[in-house]
């Protein structure tokens, strides 16, 4: 089971959020810019047309016989009507004296002396835009200023602006949508290398600790390089622990082998019963310690391998035949009849070395504990979805005390005190079986003898 990963935030979500916030800000900005530009353009065009209208009126003012005559051209107002059905107001004044038009329309006076002045004001309850133009005029001896103010309501303008506003809202919104889409795509593509890396790493087998060699984006280089260096160190440390276990075994066993061999030689030479007894005890002690050391190291190795399980198909009957063959000398030595029973064709997925070790342990135990003239039967049976490896013997069986858990590490049956063994055997077997998703059962047969069953899921 993979250890739990603590998650805080998401790069992709963060990226999308940031991009969306940016997009939203830009969209709002775009909305206001488009609107203000539209407003300005609309106002300018209205101002221009109002000014053109006023200019047309001014151009048609003439003094005839000392009296001012203004021949309003039709186009002066019709041009205003061209754009929309706006109302039009005008006023013509000479030196502030009202001449024609709408008397209540007062010109806007600018501070500067510009001949063109534009402004907005309220007129008869409606907002209007006015353009006032002045022109000096000569009436005989005295001169004066002719002032023409042309005004227009802003109804249509407002409608147009509302339309523009809606349009700019749509532009802003579409921009936002498009950007959101792009943000999602960008975030996805930005995090894709990460997903790819994760997928390629999790696809690997537990023993595959090669560095990641596929090219990655620059931003991921630190991650990948520390991952690579981590794997390098892990590989190194795994190799070291494997090496350590092997080395430890070597260091412990070699001197034991020297002593044991010498002891056996000595035993052949000494004659005195008490000396012989001493040497025999020595040999037994050596056997016990070498076995303990071996099982401790085996246990370490099993733990190590079970943590990095790389399952392969295992032909269980073939494995049993090999093992029985290899254990034959040992059983013959004790005049124990080691036999292969029913072998139903079956395959399981697992680590061959571990399974072999577990089965060897079980058979080894059976040979050792079944006693004089004993018999050990090994068989492989298919039970539905499971494959059972059964090792039966006709020895004294397991102790009856149900309180005693033989699987607990270092526990050992009380009724086998005379036989060398650390008690680790069944613990190792159980560990291996569980690492393969199987179960270990042991029981005493009704007719006497022990029965150990290893159940594995078949594949």
């Amino acid at each position: 089971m993979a250890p739990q990963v603590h998650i805080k935030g998401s790069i992709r979500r963060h990226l999308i959020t940031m991009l969306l916030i940016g997009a939203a800000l830009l969209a709002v900005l775009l909305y206001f810019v488009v609107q203000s530009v539209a407003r300005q353009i609309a106002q300018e065009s209205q101002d221009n047309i109002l000014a053109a209208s006023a200019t047309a009126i001014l151009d048609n003012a003439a003094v005839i016989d000392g009296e001012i005559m203004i021949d309003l051209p039709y186009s002066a107002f019709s041009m205003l009507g061209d754009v929309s059905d706006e109302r039009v107001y005008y006023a013509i004044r000479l030196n502030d004296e009202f001449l024609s038009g709408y008397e209540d329309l007062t010109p806007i006076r600018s501070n500067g002396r510009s001949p063109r002045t534009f402004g907005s004001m309220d007129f008869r309850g409606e907002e209007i835009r006015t353009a006032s133009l002045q022109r000096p005029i000569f009436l005989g001896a005295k001169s004066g200023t002719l002032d023409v103010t042309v005004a227009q309501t802003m109804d249509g303008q407002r409608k147009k602006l509302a339309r523009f506003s809606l349009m700019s809202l749509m532009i802003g919104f579409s921009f936002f949508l498009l950007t959101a889409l792009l943000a999602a795509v960008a975030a996805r593509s930005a995090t894709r290398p990460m997903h790819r890396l994760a997928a390629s790493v999790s696809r690997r087998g537990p023993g595959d600790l090669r560095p990641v060699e596929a090219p990655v984006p620059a931003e991921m280089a630190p991650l990948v390089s520390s991952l690579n260096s981590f794997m390098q160190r892990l590989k190194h440390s795994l190799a070291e622990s494997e090496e350590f276990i092997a080395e430890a075994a070597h260091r412990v066993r070699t001197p034991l082998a020297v002593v044991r061999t010498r002891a056996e030689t000595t035993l052949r030479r000494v004659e005195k019963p008490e000396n012989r007894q001493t040497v025999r005890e020595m040999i037994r002690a050596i056997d016990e310690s070498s076995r303990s050391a071996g099982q401790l190291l085996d246990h370490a190795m099993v733990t190590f391998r079970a943590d990095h399980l790389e399952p392969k198909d295992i032909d269980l009957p073939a494995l049993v035949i090999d093992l029985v063959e290899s254990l034959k000398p040992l059983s013959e030595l004790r005049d124990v009849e080691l036999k292969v029973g029913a072998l139903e064709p079956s395959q399981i997925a697992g680590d061959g070395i571990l399974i072999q070790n577990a089965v060897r342990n079980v058979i080894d135990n059976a040979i050792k504990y079944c006693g004089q003239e004993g018999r050990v039967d090994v068989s492989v049976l298919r039970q539905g979805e499971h494959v059972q490896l059964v090792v039966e013997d006709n020895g004294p069986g397991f102790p009856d005390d149900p309180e005693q858990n033989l699987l607990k590490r270092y526990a050992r049956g009380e009724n086998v005190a005379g036989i060398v063994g650390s008690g680790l055997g069944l613990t190792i077997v159980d560990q291996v079986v569980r690492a393969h998703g199987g179960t270990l059962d042991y029981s005493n047969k009704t007719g006497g003898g022990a029965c150990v069953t290893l159940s594995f899921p078949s594949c």
Partner: protein
Amino acid sequence: MRHLILSLLLSLVLVPVAKGFEIEEQSRFGPGETTNVLRVLSTADLAFIRPMLLPFLSKYPDVAVEYTVASSSEVMKAVFDESQSYDLVISSAMDLQTKLANDGLALSYTSQATQSLPDWANWGDQIFAFTQEPAAMVLSNKAFEGLELPRTRQELLSVLRQYPELFDGKVGTYDVRQSGLGYLFATQDARTSETYWRLSEVMGLLNVRLYTSSATMIDAVVTGELAIAYNVLGSYAMNRADKTAFTIVLPSDFTTVMLRTALIPVTAKRTDLAGRFIDHLIERTNEAGPSLLQLGSADDQVDENSLRRIRLGPGLLVYLDKFKNRSFVNEWESAILQE
């Protein structure tokens, strides 16, 4: 239908002068005891409006219509100066209608019918055109016997120049100083073509006779008093019984078309009825088709390209300007009166 018409309460009473403007006639149609009374102020006489009014009354039997006829300037005065309470104003004086709307004295109204109108027939959702009436030349058949009928202003000019003895004192047209419609036609003519001033000068030389209404001009042509009536409302001529005496010519160089319009004044009380009546007028004129043309039976002469519809809108305000009015009338007088 007939029963309905017979049951109409028809009164032709000159209203006592409680009002500050002159009215020509006032009638009331429809049921007497109803509160749904639509008050219409119009420049069109009863004969003109009746074909449009009667279907309306039969469509809405509980509505009564009080129909008041006045001259265009009096209509203007009634609405503009005295703020009389009328629900609907119908006028042929497009310039005055425009001014009413421009000065904020008209209410906006929209309905399916008003939206179906072409742009030129709707100004600011306040002025709605429901007829098109061309300015025509009415030629006496007797006077033109043996002569080719002029089809354009140029041809008219040529005829007048060629036979001054035939037409001296026998040409009639509107007195623009007296008639608003005459002034509208004249200014539009002048705006469209310089020919108008040459024609005016020639007519002046031929001692033109001036009138204030189309009907009297047509009468004069029928009696032989006039050989030519220029800028007469074609619609009046077409509806006459004594049409054989004259020929209506819509000048093919251009024909000025007046639009009769309706608007709802701000003082209206029954805007609902007024809107209903506007819809009715528009639908009525649209029955013949979408063209809205009521150019009468002289269809064969009508060339859409030669039609110059007077445009509703601020352009019409120009001729109401007192400077413009003064200078135009001055020019007209100097051309036509030959003083």
